């Protein structure tokens, strides 16, 4: 089955073909194609391997809610809805994310002069009610995603141990890390271009 996936950034930034915003993006075709190819690699992969699409869209819905971008989180939540058990997952992800909302980046530095810049913040855990729906494996991934989105400088090897213990393998952890980090990029390009195109 081959379907053409429309350009996701144009779609979510409201960039119509022929508009000034489209002209601005057309001037960097490699960037535009690379951002789209990244989305396809993460969300429409040839082989999802050990990281099923339902988990990918659950993670994306969670990450985009944390970024406070309603149109983007609705897009990913709609994709999640289409997955097996999607509606229940969507409700649980939205409830989990609501409990994780805060402002970043915060976090801590290694001992030295930067300690004065340490900023404490929420250490997020999925609550029992959502954990029961999402399962231990996906819940652990959402907890890791919260760290990556909001306080990445707090990352430690033990955070990866928790993912391995929950059943994620090394390659899936790489893909999941790329997915969260890609969204941190995609969401900022969309937010930035929307402001620029309207200004």
């Amino acid at each position: 089955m081959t379907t053409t996936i429309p350009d996701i950034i144009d779609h979510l930034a409201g960039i119509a073909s022929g508009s000034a915003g489209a002209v601005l993006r057309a001037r960097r075709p490699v960037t535009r194609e690379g951002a789209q190819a990244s989305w396809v690699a993460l969300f429409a992969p040839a082989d999802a391997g050990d990281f099923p699409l339902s988990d990918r869209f659950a993670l994306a819905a969670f990450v985009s809610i944390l970024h406070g971008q309603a149109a983007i989180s609705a897009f990913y939540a709609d994709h999640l809805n289409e997955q097996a058990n999607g509606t229940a997952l969507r409700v649980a992800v939205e409830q989990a994310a609501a409990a994780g909302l805060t402002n970043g980046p915060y976090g801590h530095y290694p001992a030295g002069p930067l300690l004065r810049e340490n900023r404490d913040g929420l250490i997020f855990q999925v609550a029992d009610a959502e954990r029961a729906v999402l399962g231990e494996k996906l819940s652990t991934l959402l907890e890791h995603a919260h760290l990556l989105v909001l306080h990445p400088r707090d990352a430690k090897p033990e955070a990866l141990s928790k993912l391995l213990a929950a059943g994620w393998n090394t390659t899936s952890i790489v893909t999941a890390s790329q997915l969260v980090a890609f969204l941190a990029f995609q969401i900022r390009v969309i937010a930035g271009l929307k402001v620029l195109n309207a200004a």
Partner: protein
Amino acid sequence: MTETIIEPQVENVPNVFTQAQIGWTPWLQPLTADELTERHYEALVDRARAQSPYFALLVRDPDILEARTKTDKDIFYNVADGLPRAERELAATAASRANGCIFCASVHSRFASHHSDHKAEVQKLLDDGVSADLGERWNAIVAATVALTATPPSFGSDHVERLRTAGLSNEEISDVIHGGAFFNWANRLMLSLGEPTPAQ
């Protein structure tokens, strides 16, 4: 044995932002030279990147690495037009400084200094942080990047106006957005998959 973490015992962990050539060591097992196929080399884009533990780890998922690498190179190295190289590196450094990625900031502050010949101003950004006074044009780029780097992003029309007043075209502002946004990708990988090591 792949499915365990690596806990490097790094002595003299880099604990300040620096332009020195520090290193990086992974917390998960990169692919070894024996494990690399042609598909992996294709995804690395530059074959030499197989020597880097960072890229040899990321290449475990070749499709996303290849797409990401092409995006990265175009955002920073396509200088047919738009924002000067130095200021793209300034945006990369500002995002890294705000997020707290000492390794990313070291690489890209060096590039910013190299392309601008303003090493002292770049060092000021590292030493004093994102509110350092670097001259209005650079201040506007740093402020816009920091606002975009916040979660949720707080980049607004006031940032666009300040950049325009500082002389940036819409094309250049788009380059600031892409450079800053891209480092929100890079910082999260570098910070969460390994850690910096001291300069040799």
